[in-house]
């Protein structure tokens, strides 16, 4: 039955079983990452046990999206006990059932141990990882069953849409978005309200709203988690965008690598259609809107909005020059508003709680929160949502818990292949669009990769260049050939076959590619090289002047003479007697790293 009024919404909400009627609610992570660790089998086994013991009315097992503390996954929250069990395997299911569910005894060995402080922290709210976070975009992710429209409605879902359609004109909705100060979360940071106002102002018989879910930056998985964990928020936001922009059709462009993540989204769209949130006469009005999913086919450049539109039209995903901007002439030549997943899901919250509330969070010119995907060499890995203006230090150390082995953190890479590195000197920089640009970095989509003292910055820059030269669509020469030449220079350097002039060549090429490329991919492609050159020039020089050591070394002070390294060395280049310091023959070492992994005392020094 189509939902037409606030009362209808309340009725739909009432269909959700009352959570307080259960003795216990268990939230189990069902994100792609946790599925790769068999959380679906844990879910099945636990469900079977609950049913066999006829506890379905007592124990509410909910398979949620991502519980966000991904490094500890698969993870489970149990309420009202306020307990989290982490790093679960299928072997733990019986203990959880027999001990906790049946007898109410906590299974100590499955509790989270805060490695930094070496103590057990049973309750999620007490974990440092969650303490400084503030959730707007991720407000429902990990809290509700993404397959249940009732669960979403119970959290004021589709109420923002109802208010927009019943109480507000399109221009009033745009005004709220504009006043909130929301800026695009996909990387560029363009004010969303302004984009919408422009699309709305262009006269046309048809307009489109598009969701850019082509999350391609390595190390970024925020959008995937939202799509998996709270798909209805995206659906609702897109309908609101359609209403505000004057569009009757929405498209979600998802990268092909995420094809396995879209089942909850497909289901959400079907359910929304079934309940009349999509279709004709939405909330009894004259407004009609529908959403379609469009799968990509594996091309990073399609994250660029004009390339994305070309791809949707059945072309190679090559970008077009701007202007005209998509707001004027986009999909099928019609005015099109392209926004990112995270940008969208902020919209219902802004409508419900008001522009002033949203604008009160963050810094002067960057409002609200930002979701980051923390990855790399960090103790706590996962999804983090913090108010704009939070510093790198707070994210890396307070939330991320620092390096797992206490090593020095050398740099943080943000903004993916378009971004750059930030060194410790800048860790107190507040994270917002403008402060980042001021220090030569950019917000990017939200991947944050932490690297420790052992990371070779030239190798990492080479890695990104390999990525961009591979993903360059080939349309414009500076990007197609320039990135390839930069990559070749880096290959030459790291093979110890370069020369000092190569450093100048890299800089000149980099500047030219930035200035002359057609789209954002090319214009930012040299950033990983230029920014690491700025901060770690000595590492480039070591390669250019061929003074870089290429073999492993043994630190005599740490070596206990256990012989483990000598035993694993495939070329027998480690010598030493039992309980005496060992040495590596530098000429024979092939730098395979086997000794490094075998050493129990960290005595092996990487090249």
């Amino acid at each position, binding site marked *: 039955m189509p939902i037409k009024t606030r009362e209808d919404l309340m009725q739909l909400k009432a269909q959700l079983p009352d959570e307080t009627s259960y003795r216990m609610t268990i939230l189990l992570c069902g994100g792609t990452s946790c599925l790769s660790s068999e959380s679906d089998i844990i879910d099945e086994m636990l469900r079977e046990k609950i049913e066999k013991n006829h506890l379905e009315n007592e124990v509410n097992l909910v398979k949620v999206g991502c519980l966000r503390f991904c*490094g500890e996954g698969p993870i489970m929250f149990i309420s009202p006990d306020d307990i989290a069990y982490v790093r679960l395997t299928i072997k733990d299911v019986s203990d959880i059932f027999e001990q906790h569910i049946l007898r109410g005894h906590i299974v100590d060995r499955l509790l989270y141990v805060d490695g930094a402080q070496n103590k057990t922290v049973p309750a999620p709210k007490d974990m440092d990882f969650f303490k400084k976070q503030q959730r707007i975009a991720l407000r429902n992710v990990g809290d509700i069953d993404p397959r249940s429209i009732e669960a979403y409605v119970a959290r004021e879902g589709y109420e923002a849409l109802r208010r927009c359609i019943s109480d507000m004109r399109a221009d009033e909705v745009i005004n709220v978005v504009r006043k909130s100060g929301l800026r695009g979360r996909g990387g560029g940071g363009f004010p969303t309200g302004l984009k919408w106002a422009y699309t709305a102002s262009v006269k046309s018989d048809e307009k489109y709203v598009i969701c850019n879910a082509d*999350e391609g930056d*390595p190390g970024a998985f925020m959008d*995937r988690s939202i799509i998996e964990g709270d798909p209805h928020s995206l659906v609702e936001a897109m309908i609101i965008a359609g209403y505000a922009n004057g569009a009757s059709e929405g498209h979600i462009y998802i990268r092909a690598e995420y094809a396995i993540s879209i089942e909850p989204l497909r289901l959400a769209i079907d359910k929304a259609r079934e309940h009349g949130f999509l279709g004709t006469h939405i909330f009894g009005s004259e407004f009609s809107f529908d959403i379609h999913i*469009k799968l990509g086919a594996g*091309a990073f450049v399609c994250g660029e909005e004009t390339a994305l539109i070309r791809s949707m039209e059945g072309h190679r995903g090559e970008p077009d020059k701007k202007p005209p901007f998509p707001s004027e002439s986009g999909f099928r030549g019609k005015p099109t508003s392209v926004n990112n997943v995270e940008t969208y899901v902020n919209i219902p919250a802004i409508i419900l709680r008001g522009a002033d509330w949203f604008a009160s969070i963050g810094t002067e010119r960057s409002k609200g929160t930002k979701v980051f995907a923390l990855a790399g060499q960090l103790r706590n890995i996962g999804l983090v949502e913090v108010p704009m203006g939070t510093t790198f230090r707070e994210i890396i150390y307070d939330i991320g818990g620092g390096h797992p082995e206490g090593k020095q953190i050398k740099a943080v890479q943000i903004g993916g292949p378009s971004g750059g590195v930030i060194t410790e000197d800048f860790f107190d920089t507040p994270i917002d669009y403008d402060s980042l640009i001021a220090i030569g970095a950019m917000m990017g989509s939200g991947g944050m990769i932490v690297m420790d003292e052992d990371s070779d910055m030239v190798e990492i820059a080479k*890695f990104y260049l390999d990525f961009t030269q591979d993903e360059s669509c080939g349309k414009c020469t500076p990007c197609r050939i320039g990135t390839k030449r930069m990559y070749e220079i880096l290959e030459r350097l790291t093979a110890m076959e370069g020369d000092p002039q190569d450093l100048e060549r890299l800089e000149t090429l980099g500047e030219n590619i930035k200035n002359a490329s057609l789209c954002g991919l090319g214009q930012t492609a040299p950033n990983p090289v230029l920014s690491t050159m700025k901060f770690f020039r000595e590492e480039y020089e070591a390669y250019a002047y061929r003074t870089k050591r290429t073999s492993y070394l043994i630190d005599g002070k740490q070596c206990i003479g256990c012989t483990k390294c000598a035993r694993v060395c495939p070329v027998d280049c480690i010598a030493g007697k039992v309980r005496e310091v060992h040495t590596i023959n530098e000429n024979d070492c092939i730098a395979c790293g086997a000794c490094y992994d075998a050493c129990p005392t960290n005595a092996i020094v990487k090249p």
Partner: protein
Amino acid sequence: MELKRILEKYPKRQDCLIDVLLDVQNTKSTRHLTEVELARVSEHLGLPESHVFSVVSFYSFFSMTPRGKHILQVCRDVPCYLNDTFNVHETLESMLGIKTGDTTEDGLFTLEYSSCLGCCDQAPVMRVNDTVYGNLTPDKLRAIISECRSDDDA
């Protein structure tokens, strides 16, 4: 016959091109597209064959060479590289006796690279058809390979 049935599902519009191609490729056990199929698709959508070919050659998800039953796509992005205590590619290459991009002679495995799979917290990661495997170790790779092999025997 299969191809005809797929084509009939789609309206004759250019913007369906990528959907059609993905659909055709996914329904085949060899997960690849042939010149004959491209010609049929171009005929159905009223597009030049050259355009269809240019699109197929642009996107990494399309293949014009037959692929194995199990497509191993190893993520090669930065978080996986940083957490890579052993070389996943080289290990798989030596286990399967093929180079990246090739298919084993028995037609069971194809080894490929993948862009970021968004499971960076489980790095290093690979995808085998529709399943993602994380926290890879040489032992885990061996187990996955033998599981795929025994699936095939069953």
